[in-house]
C-alpha cells in the first residue's frame, strides 16, 4: 500500500512525514518540497513523475540519505534517518540503499566485476564470498559473461544493468532509481525496465524510481506526480490512498 496523506500503515518500510526542502540560490529562496508525506511498503514499485524542477530528484536524494531535509522526518525500516549524524548516515546508506543513476556512474577504470564489488568492499565478506555475490548479481542482470569488461566496452543498456547489479549486490532495503532509462534507447530501456520488474516480482525488492517517460512509469505499481514540491495525483492498478485521482 502506498499512501501520501501522512496516515499510512506503521508497518511501511519507508515513511516520510512533512518533508520540506528549501534552497537558497543567490537572493532567491527556493521551496523544492513542501510538507510531503509518503508511505511505501516492502516490495512496492513506485514511479515519481513531474516536470523538471518539481522536486522528484530532491525527494529521491532525501530518501536515499544523500541530502538532508529542511524539515520533516524519514523513517526506513523503523530507523529515523533524519536523526542520524553524517557518519551514521553514510553507514546506513551502505546497508539500506541501492542507487541507480541516469548516467550509470560506473567507475571507468574498474571492470564490471570490480564496479559491482564496490559496495561489498565495505562489508566483512571474504574475497570468495564477495566473488560469489558479484557473480550472482551479474548473472541476474544478464552480464555474467561480461564481468571482465570495462564500462567503455559495454553498451549504454549494459552499463545500466551493471549499475543495477551494483545497486542490488549488497541486498539493500530499497532501490532508488533516478531516470534509469533516461539515457537509453527504447529497446535498452525496455530491457532495464524488465530487469527492474523482475527484481520487484522475483526478488521482492522495493523500488522508487524517478522518470519523465510515461511508458517507463507504466511498469510501476503506482505513479505519483510531483508538482511544485507537492504530490498531487496518482494512478495505476494499486490504490494510492490520499491522492486525487
Amino acid at each position, binding site marked *: 500500500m502506498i499512501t501520501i496523506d501522512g496516515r499510512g500503515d506503521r508497518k511501511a518500510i519507508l515513511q516520510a512525514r512533512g518533508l520540506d526542502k528549501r534552497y537558497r540560490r543567490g537572493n532567491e529562496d527556493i521551496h523544492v518540497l513542501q510538507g510531503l508525506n509518503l508511505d511505501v511498503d516492502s516490495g512496492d514499485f513506485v514511479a515519481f513523475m513531474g516536470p523538471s524542477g518539481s522536486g522528484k530528484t530532491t525527494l529521491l*536524494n532525501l530518501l*536515499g540519505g*544523500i*541530502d538532508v531535509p529542511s524539515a520533516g522526518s524519514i523513517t526506513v525500516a523503523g530507523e529515523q534517518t533524519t536523526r542520524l549524524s*553524517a*557518519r551514521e548516515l*553514510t*553507514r546506513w*546508506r*551502505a*546497508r539500506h540503499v541501492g*542507487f541507480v*543513476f541516469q*548516467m550509470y*556512474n560506473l*567507475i*571507468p*577504470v*574498474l571492470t564490471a566485476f*570490480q564496479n559491482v564489488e*564496490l*559496495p561489498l*568492499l*565495505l562489508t566483512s565478506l571474504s*574475497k570468495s564470498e564477495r566473488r560469489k555475490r558479484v557473480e550472482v548479481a551479474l548473472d541476474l542482470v544478464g552480464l555474467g559473461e561480461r564481468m571482465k569488461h570495462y564500462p567503455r566496452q559495454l553498451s549504454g543498456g549494459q552499463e545500466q544493468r551493471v549499475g543495477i547489479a*551494483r545497486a542490488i549486490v549488497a541486498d539493500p532495503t530499497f532501490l532508488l532509481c533516478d531516470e534509469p532509462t533516461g539515457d537509453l534507447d527504447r529497446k535498452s530501456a525496455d530491457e532495464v525496465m524488465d530487469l527492474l520488474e523482475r527484481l520487484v516480482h522475483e526478488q521482492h525488492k522495493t523500488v522508487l524510481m524517478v522518470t519523465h517517460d510515461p511508458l517507463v512509469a507504466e511498469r510501476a505499481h503506482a505513479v505519483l506526480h510531483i508538482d511544485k514540491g507537492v504530490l498531487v495525483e496518482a494512478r495505476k492498478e494499486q490504490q494510492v490512498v490520499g491522492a486525487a485521482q
Partner: protein
Amino acid sequence: MKFRHLVLGNLFRKKIRTALTIASFTVALFLFCALAIVQLAFQPTGINVQGADRLLVVNKVSVIIPMPVSYQARMARIPGVRGVTYATWFGGVYQDDQNSFAQYAVDTATWRPLFPEFNVAEDQWKAFVEDREAAFVGEQTAKRFNWKIGDRIPLKGTTYSGVWEFNIRGIYTGKSPEDDTSVFWMHWDLLNERIEDKNQKNLVGWYTVALNNPEDADRVIKAIDSEFANSGWETKSATEKAFASSFAQQLGNVKLMVLSIGAVVFFTLLLVTGNTIAIAVRERLRELAILKAIGYSDGFVLSLVVFESMTVAVIGSLVGLGLAELMVLHGDPTGGSLPYFYLSRGAAVTAIGLSLVTGVIASIVPAISAMRLKIVEALRRA
C-alpha cells in the same frame, strides 16, 4: 589490500600524467641523492670523523707550517695519551698534473695502530715497513690508476721537486664507506732523508694523537697546547671531529647549499604534484560522489587521494634511489678524484622521507576538498 583496484585504476587512468608525476619524483630524488653524494665528497680529505677519541695537532699559525718531529715524544708523555703519530703532506701528481690525490709521508712505526678503521693486511704492512721506497695505497686510488701490488710508481713532486718512485707494497680498504681510501701512504723517513734544505728537515705536517678516554679530550688539548706555548712552533689542537667541521666551514657550507637546493627541488615538486592531484581530483568529482553515495566514508575518500599521491611518490622515489645507486655503482664520474663517492644510508632515508612528506602535503588540500564534497552538488555539477 582489497581497494588496490581502485588505487591502481586511478593511477593508470591518465598514464602519461602519472608517468610524468612519477618522473618528477624520480628526478627530484635522484638530484637530492646526487647532491648528498657531492656533499659527502666535499668532506675534508683524510680526516676521518671518528668522534672525539683522536686529536689533530697542527701549527697554530697555519696548517701548512710544519712542526718539529721531536714533539712526538713530548706529546706521548702527556697523561691520557694512548699514542702519537705524524704525517706530512707530500703533494705529488701521477703522470699528469690533473692526476692529483692525497699522499701522506707517515711514521711507519706509529701510524697503523692509530687508524683501526682501515683493513691492512699484516704481510703487506710488513713489506711496506721493510722497504723505504714503499707505498701503501688506498683501494680507491689503486682502482683509479689500475695499480697492483708490486708496481713501481713514479710521482712528480710539486711541494718536493723531482720525480719520486715508489713500490706498491700494499692496498688497504675501509671498514665502512665513510673511510677515505684515496690516500697514498709513504715513508716519512724517506722524505726527510731526501730533503736537501736543512731547515726543512725533521719537520712534520701534523700530529694525530689517540686518547685512552674521549672524555679527556679537553684536558689533553689544553695540555698539548700549553706544552708548546711560547715555543717557535706553537700548536693548535682539536678533536678530529672539530677539525673536520672547521675545515668544512672554510670550504664553504656545502651542506647548507645542498639542503637549499634540495629544499627548492622538493618545494617545486610539491607545487607540481599538488596541482596535478588537484586536477585529477577535479576530473573525478562525480566518481568520488558516487563512492560516498554507496557508503564510502569521507575519511576513506580523503585516504584514497592521499594514498594515491603517496603511491606515486614511493614509485618515483624508489626509481630515483635506484638510479642514484646505479650512479654510485658506475663509479666516480671524475675518475676517482673524489675521495668519497657513495650514497649514505642517512641521505637515502632522508630523501625517501622527504618524498613521502611531499606526496602527503601535495595531496592534502585536494584530499580535504574531496572529503568535504557534497554528493548532491557533485552529481549535479559533474
